[in-house]
């Protein structure tokens, strides 16, 4: 088992074994990231494959200021966004002034496995899904999301609000239907 520095040095030299080891170390987590952004396993695998090729090609640019995992994740997210570019379907605008009515009782998620939550995210319209991931999970703010996706800040906010509304209602529906919370 090599350290991250050794892996990076080996991958920079084009050592295929090191590249495979680096892939094995991060692929599983990055695959979940891909699944959050695109619909379907095949498409997620395409994104993952393309992202790791970029990782190996851009490893010369990696600086140790950020962790290797967060650097790879950034590449994966950008690849997923590029994959979606031109395909993002934005849900019709909602009135953001009425958002307070959407707050309601927020359900806890600790009772759910990530695979279930993943399925819920994948059911979102593509625009809502991407913005939800960027805001709620990656931690971007709406201004950054607007710059990234070339949309307005208002659009980012409204799409996120809609995503939140849809997810809330789906979780409520699950609970109503006696969904087993496995923990």
């Amino acid at each position, binding site marked *: 088992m090599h350290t991250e520095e050794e892996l990076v040095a080996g991958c920079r030299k084009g050592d295929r074994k090191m590249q*495979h080891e680096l892939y094995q170390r991060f692929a*599983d987590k990055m695959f*979940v990231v891909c699944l959050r952004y695109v619909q379907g396993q095949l*498409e*997620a695998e395409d994104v993952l*494959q393309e992202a790791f*090729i970029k990782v190996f090609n851009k490893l010369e640019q990696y600086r140790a200021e950020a962790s290797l995992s967060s650097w790879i994740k950034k590449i994966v997210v950008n690849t997923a966004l590029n994959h979606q570019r031109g395909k993002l379907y934005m849900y019709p605008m909602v009135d953001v002034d009425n958002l307070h009515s959407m707050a309601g009782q*927020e359900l806890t998620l600790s009772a759910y496995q990530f695979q279930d939550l993943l399925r819920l995210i994948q059911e979102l319209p593509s625009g809502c899904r991407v913005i939800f991931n960027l805001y709620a*999970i990656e931690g971007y703010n709406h201004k950054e999301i607007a710059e990234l996706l070339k949309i307005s800040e208002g659009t980012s*906010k409204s799409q996120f609000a809609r995503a939140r509304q849809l997810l809330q209602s789906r979780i409520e529906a699950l609970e109503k239907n006696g969904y087993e919370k496995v923990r």
Partner: protein
Amino acid sequence: MKKLDERSEWEKEWESAFNGASLPPSENVWNGIDGALDRQEVRKYKKRALFYQWVAAASVLLVMGLGGWLMLGELVKQNQGQLATEEPFIPSVNDTGIIEGKEIPQQAPNEIAAAAGSGEEDTVLIPASEVAVAFEGGEISQKNVENSASAYADEESAVGADKSFSTTIPYLFNSSASLAEAIVNKALSTFRAPSDRESSLIALARGKDFIEEGLAGPLEVSVRKVWVASEMFREKEEDLSAPRYWLGASLASNLYQPNFENGEYTSFESLAVKEAEPTKGNQISTARVSEWKEDEEQQISINAGFQAAAWLSEKWVLQSGLQYGSYRSTATAGTFVDGSTGQAYPLHYANFSYDKLQKASVSSRLAAPVEAVNSFEFISVPLQIGYVVFDRQFGLLLSPGLSSEFFIRNQITDENDRLSTFTVNAGKDAPFNRVHFNAIMGAQLYYKLGENYMISLEPSFRQAISSFSKSDSYFNSRPSNIGVAAGFRYIIR
């Protein structure tokens, strides 16, 4: 009202729900990465190889130019040197009308100078009139030598008949080694006359009464040498002017460009504009026509074949041959699904038709662009006229010509192996003509390995002068091809 810019606990719960979440992807992902990295390495190697090829070709051209310039310069110098050594053959005439022999000039070539010696002590005075007879226009003709020799053999002159004839005609024959004799010796050594050959030539000369039986001593030796040298030179000239042949094989590396353009009745630009129009629902065209010319790239292609040539004269060569070429180029392409088989294929110029324009969901793999490889196979029959710029140990030949290109097959493949390969075979259904013609501009730098072999380096450029695509195709194509071949030849005399 909660501001949407402040992340709430809800968002943080979602974040923590996915902390450490992992799912293993299928093995296909690493296989795809592995394959892509291999292809990148091969491309880097090919680019480096192509770079070195072009450096080699440029170096060859530079060497050819330099070699040609140096050799031409040497030829000029040699000619000047010969002129310089020939001038002193003309003896000066003093006030009494008597010719004085000249000393060997200092600019003479080394071997002549070494062989010649100073000659001063052996110089003998002879009447100018006799010089004029024997020395005809600066050339030493064996007839005139013979006439002068026989004239002096009979007469009592200042030198006397008992003196050796080498002293009677100093500018021709010198007892130590005259300039002329040295030149004759040099000519003989150049032509490497074996002794039995020399004997047979002398016999021939005697048979034709070119050399009298009565000649003896150094005069006979010198006359014989002149005769043999002139015969050898004549044979060499005949040998040089006789047609020669060579057979050879070559292997070339090329860059091929099919040069696809709109056909007469099809506008791919207008199709591209239509593709860009918003559609109902989340559907886009799978054809991706607007991207077909993006990233169009020539790829390393190969060409191998046999050649034959006949030397029509010293300077002109007629060449032909038979070659097999497999040429590749890459481009961004679209996709179509064959309704009857369900197979998905790359869609590009060669297999385009309007019924293949399909739409798919934006998130479908069919809507994604395809990195397509177009490969074309031909049998080529070139016919070239070569002009020999120079022919020494190295030689340079310029060879323009024409070639007939017989189309065999075109295959469109997906570089990422996601789609099936589409094959277009030559025939009435193909959008390509079975035969089209190329203009060729080529050069050959060759190096002789002994008398019967040579190796060559041949850069060439080919441009289609007739259309590769049929007149009723959706597109036009007039390919171009630039490459360098390495060849090996066997010379038949």
